[in-house]
């Protein structure tokens, strides 16, 4: 019997691969949303397991806020040349130039919210019927109720009360023209599961995830990178610290944590002892308790 034992990481991996294949089979024109963060890197790894030796049946789509850490873009381009898959990039800057969105100003100015418009524009331009994303249900309360196949109306909106029941592993991806589905293959991974999976699989990550010296300043108990994209108040002084990032989204809303962890095993150890969940280091969620839910309704990933 014991040889048919299934470890929890194997179970999560098998489920994610199954979901990726369902997406490929049920949709005409899917794309994998690639942010350069660890969750989307894990998605790429899972897609390799799902489809090799064939090519991915979808391109990667990066919504570039223009406020990236240079390391992220470097990593993205290396990865693409290694796996030889198609990458499509759409720029928030273009949406701003076209007057589709207005740049935020002030202390908390961020392009994180603007991404939504660029993404929705890309979805209609490329006629995508499914977008695969790396969101997880443990990230946030509103995510805890997200389906694996989450249907959005033609305005990209999520209506929590209208969600389709999702039974067994029978995913219903039938939609009308103009609607699209967000697919979340790693819904059931927690942050710790992702790290343990990265460790087990030996998945490479951008250097930002590991400790390094950086110029940072403290705000609301979090450490922000000193960068031209972040408005810094005069009293917020820049210091050099050993930090690492737990998420790497838009530079303007991603804070670092003080850390000595320079490898995956050390990060896992740190996480087990951690007192703060990863979204705690994202400014955009602190704005209000229901922040994520509001953004999701509006089409945010």
């Amino acid at each position, binding site marked *: *019997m014991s040889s*048919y*034992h*299934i*470890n*929890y990481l*194997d*179970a*999560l*991996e*098998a*489920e994610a*691969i*199954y979901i990726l*294949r*369902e997406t*490929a*089979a049920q949709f005409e024109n899917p794309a994998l949303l690639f942010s350069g963060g660890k969750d989307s890197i894990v998605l790429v790894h899972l897609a*390799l*397991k*799902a*489809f*090799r*030796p*064939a*090519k991915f049946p979808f391109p990667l789509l990066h919504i570039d806020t223009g406020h990236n850490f240079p390391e992220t873009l470097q990593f993205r381009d290396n990865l693409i040349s290694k796996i030889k898959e198609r990458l499509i990039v759409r720029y928030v800057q273009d949406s701003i130039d076209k007057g589709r969105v207005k740049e935020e100003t002030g202390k908390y100015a961020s392009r994180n919210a603007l991404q939504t418009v660029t993404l929705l524009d890309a979805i209609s331009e490329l006629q995508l019927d499914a977008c695969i994303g790396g969101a997880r*249900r*443990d990230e946030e*309360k*509103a995510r*805890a*109720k997200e389906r694996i196949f989450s249907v959005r109306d033609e305005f990209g909106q999520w209506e*929590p*009360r209208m*969600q*389709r*029941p*999702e*039974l*067994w*592993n*029978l995913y*219903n991806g*039938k*939609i*009308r023209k103009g609607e699209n589905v967000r697919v979340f293959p790693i*819904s*059931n991974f*927690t942050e*710790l*599961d992702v790290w343990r999976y990265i460790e087990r699989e030996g998945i490479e990550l951008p250097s930002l995830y590991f400790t390094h010296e950086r110029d940072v300043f403290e705000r609301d108990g979090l450490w922000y990178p000193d960068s031209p994209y972040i408005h810094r108040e005069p009293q917020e002084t820049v210091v050099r610290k050993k930090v690492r990032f737990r998420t790497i989204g838009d530079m303007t809303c991603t804070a670092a944590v003080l850390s000595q962890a320079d490898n995956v095993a050390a990060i896992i150890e740190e996480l087990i002892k*951690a*007192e*703060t*969940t990863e*979204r*705690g280091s994202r400014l955009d969620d602190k704005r209000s*308790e*229901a922040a994520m*839910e509001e953004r999701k309704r509006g089409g945010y990933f």
Partner: protein
Amino acid sequence: MELLRFLTAGSVDDGKSTLIGRLLYDSRSLLRDQLEAIEKSSRKKGDDFLNLALATDGLKAEREQGITIDVAYKYFSTPKRKFIIADTPGHIQYTRNMVTGASTANLMVVLVDARNGVTEQTRRHSIIASLLAIPHLVVCINKMDLVGFSQERFEQIKEEFLQFSGKLNIKDITFIPISALQGDNVVNLSDNMPWYEGRSLLHYLEEVYIESDRNLQNPRFPVQYVIRPETAEYPDYRAYAGMVASGIFKQGDAILVLPAGFTTTITSIDFYGKQLPEAFAPQSVAIRLSDNLDIARGDVFVDAVNPPRIGQDILANVCWMSSDELRPGTVLILQQNTRRVKAKITEIVYKIEINTLDEIVGVGALKMNDIALVKIRTAAPVLLDDYKFNRATGSFILIDENTNLTAAAGVIRG
């Protein structure tokens, strides 16, 4: 470390949210910022204690109304197991949400308020567990602090429950007296109930034997997707990708391809550049065959020696989930594993009175949340595995062709 999926059921105020909050809190799965958010909300609501129930509330509308209306998934782990909790509402008008949570669960925790004993809701939730063939049921008799931690009361409720559960299809039932609010017997055994000789709830969840919950006897492999690189390096490679739904497949096995009915042999089981000697449920792999056959998504590989029945007439229990009524004659799309076929509901044999299991004949239409035994005629053959023995292939959903909504969950009665 294994994965255990369970669902929690109970009527409003039985202490479900408190229990989940307690499990997350005592297993240190609530982190500082989550705790801070709970403290803040607790204060805002005027509670003078840490309201652990708030850890599980999800959507804003629900927070405002103070009730749970959907299925929320929660995660925690101990060194022994990773747990996924499906937190579902208990009201009868949310039966469909409970069915959803139950469909993937190995285990259901049913909460009973020690003061009230077994109620209509307790019976309904246990009946759903039985219909969905959840292998393990844990009856947590909660609020023991409010009945003086009385052993007599505990035994009384247990007796009451066993009297009714005899007619259910649940193999494994366990009773645990707890106080979710104070933590007695949730994670640690309670000094207040020295008479209780079993395990704490968490300890039970860590230890309950779930390996045999999977069907490893009947090989079934629904084809999901065909992998054909068509590159210079792999000009003729063709593999059938999918998840093993049940049973074990070995390289060299003779298999039957359904519904077409031809036999062939497995030449290779591929996984990310490796060849595996065998694959078992629920692994995702890709299978290559000795013959070049016309095989597509929706076909199923089964063992050639002991194949399942296939056919176009299904007898099934369905839970109707749509706000439109279901009447005999309605045509829907039936999705079974990776296969979709048109299906007509030919007869509502009887509706199941979900609080008592009574059979009500002569019902003209099903409303949302109704559970009934129905006859279905499909446009093409499907597998007819009995759900009781095979949850992975004995289940299906019905999709409304006009709205594309998932309108029903069904389980085949063999």
